[in-house]
């Protein structure tokens, strides 16, 4: 083991596979760390080769979150498990109104995974972290026997700095709040579905997977009174709107005509019998802001490229049971409900 191997790793021949010993704590694991993880995530805290990262607190108030990523396939149009594992956790921090600063990354690798696949995932993570302005400062690797994993599972946890006095959380939502949506819905859900080869569905849709810290900073910098933020991952907009409404026991009305959905996503939904309001997103969020600041907040979102397509989609109407109604362009209204399980493609 020499210093040069850190900065100049020998490329492993293609066809090299993850072995049980890569998680065994011995020489092979050490080589994996030095040749794959350390060069990609390169930062002083990680280079210290300690059991954890020790650093001064980036702010008086912190946000802390964790998430696990088990997506199949590992690579899909618009992203991969690596970028997703960074964006997902960075976005959960952003939804707390925090600026993400550091992440941990735990890898569960399946025996037999090509090392080149792992390198691709790790490179993608590093690029996503750089784009989001966070450092991956500590990590862990385990290997499970062949057949007991889907190639790679990643668990990331993150810390973010909160440098404002707002209480951004479901309990802060008030009757009369405006509900804003950061962009069009359903891209990630459709991209993943199309990428799973067993459905044999072709689609041009790319995942919307993206970091959301920048638009959230712009939103907060606008001075708007932001009450709550929620990223629209599993369960989509419908689940988020219902969870918030039921938690604070305030009814909500959404205007279906104001909710942007791209034509390719709509086509896929028409074909499969899916509702875009229930589809997963990885780069979209909803914001509950004081009515008086709705226009200012919307303008701030629209000034960021990632949220240029933001729109106002509804209002928290009055204290109640937390019912969310959807106004349909044709004039009628219907109650929105969460799904019982996954959306399943219908027969005809």
């Amino acid at each position, binding site marked *: 083991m020499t210093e040069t191997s850190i900065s100049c790793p020998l490329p492993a021949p293609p066809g090299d596979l993850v072995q049980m010993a890569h998680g065994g704590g011995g020489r092979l694991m050490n080589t994996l760390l030095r040749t794959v993880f350390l060069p990609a995530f390169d930062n002083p805290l990680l280079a210290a080769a300690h059991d954890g990262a020790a650093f001064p607190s980036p702010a008086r108030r912190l946000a802390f979150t964790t998430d696990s990523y088990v997506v199949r396939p590992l690579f899909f149009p618009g992203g991969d498990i690596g970028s997703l594992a960074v964006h997902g956790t960075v976005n959960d921090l952003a939804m707390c109104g925090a600026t993400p600063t550091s992440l941990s990354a735990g890898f569960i690798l399946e025996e037999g995974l090509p090392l080149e696949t792992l390198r691709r995932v790790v490179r993608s993570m590093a690029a996503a972290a750089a784009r989001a302005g966070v450092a991956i400062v500590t990590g862990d690797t385990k290997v499970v026997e062949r057949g007991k994993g889907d190639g790679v599972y990643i668990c990331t946890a993150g810390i973010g700095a909160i440098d404002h006095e707002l209480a951004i959380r479901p309990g802060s939502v008030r009757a009369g709040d405006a509900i804003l949506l950061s962009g069009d819905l359903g891209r990630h859900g459709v991209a993943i579905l199309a990428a799973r080869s067993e459905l044999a569905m072709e689609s041009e849709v790319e995942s919307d997977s993206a970091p959301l810290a920048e638009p959230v900073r712009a939103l907060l910098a606008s001075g708007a009174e932001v009450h709550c933020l929620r990223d629209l991952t599993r369960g989509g907009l419908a689940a988020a709107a219902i969870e918030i409404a039921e938690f604070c026991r305030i009814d909500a009305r959404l205007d279906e005509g104001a909710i942007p959905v791209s034509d390719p996503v709509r086509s896929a939904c028409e074909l499969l019998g899916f509702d875009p309001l229930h589809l997963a997103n990885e780069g979209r969020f909803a914001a509950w802001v004081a009515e008086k600041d709705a226009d200012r907040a919307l303008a701030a979102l629209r000034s960021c490229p990632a949220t240029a397509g933001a729109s106002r989609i509804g209002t928290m109407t009055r204290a109640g049971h937390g019912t969310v109604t959807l106004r349909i362009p044709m004039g009628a209204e219907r109650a929105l*409900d969460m799904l019982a399980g996954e959306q399943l493609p219908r027969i005809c």
Partner: protein
Amino acid sequence: MKYIDEYRDPAAARGLARAIEKVVTRPWKLMEVCGGQTNTIVRFGLDGMLPAGVTLLHGPGCPVCVTPLELIDRALAIAALPGVIFVSFGDMLRVPGTRGDLLGARAAGADVRIVLSPLDAVRIAQENPSRQTVFFGVGFETTAPATALAVATAERDGVSNFSLLVSHVLVPPAIEAIMGSPTNQVQGFLAAGHVCTVMGFTEYEPIAARYNVPIVVTGFEPLDILQGVLLCVTQLEEGRAVVENQYSRSVRRDGNLPARTLVEDVFEVIPRKWRGIGEIPASGLGLRPRFARFDAESRFDVASIRTEEPPECISGLVLQGLRTPLECPAFGTRCTPERPLGATMVSAEGACAAYYRHRRTAPAGAP
């Protein structure tokens, strides 16, 4: 989105609703046959746009809903066999059998897969020659040609490890069963546009004449359905009872001849059990003797599995338009999409699920 948005135009919809109001002089009860139509009606709130006297009853045209419990139990038995790959359309996976559903079978270790086309099941069989691949062939005349094509392909390519659990049913016998019932309330039908795209509508003409009931072949978009209602109530007001084609952009009088020929080559008409209704003579499709070796029920010896329907579920009455989901004492309490008693609560096209999904306006926590 082209070819969709034109049929969802709010101003045009209001215009049709006004035209219906102008025509109607007394109450009429119409039945939309297809579950896809039911879903459009509830999702877009179309019934709320109609004059008070015009009632839409939700018909038996959801393939998931009418598949009898017995067949689900047979599917579960086959799926649980070692070495079997059980392939199905997505919404069959949550339909409860006597003990659990196919999603539960998958969790317990069965290899259950979702496809969009029956031909994919043949491909799966070819890719797994040492295992048995079984396709759950569910649906009305709309999906029957694709299933027939899968069987014909398996025969042509000698895919002997492919078989079919058949549950195809036919619309006209169901309409006749409803019209022949002494408790019938239906005065006019919106026939299922996609079924007629395959089959045409000549077989509905004798039914319209025999029962003196107007039948309008209708599409699935909001304007299609409103126009179908307008044509149907106009006939009723004028005392006419014929078959009319609202969905002419898709349906021809004789249907799709190659598709019909394929279905007739592979299948023959047999009696079938309907969930909640019971056996209807000549109401379904079974494999012709020439294709009998592709019949999963005999290959896996499950034909002896017999099951009775749970007594509390009124889905049979709902499917015949005799009750609405809201008249069921179990609706929303002992029967929900998470724990369905019957298939009408499971499928996206089922009347109970459509009511539950779009109308759950009762206060949270209240029954």
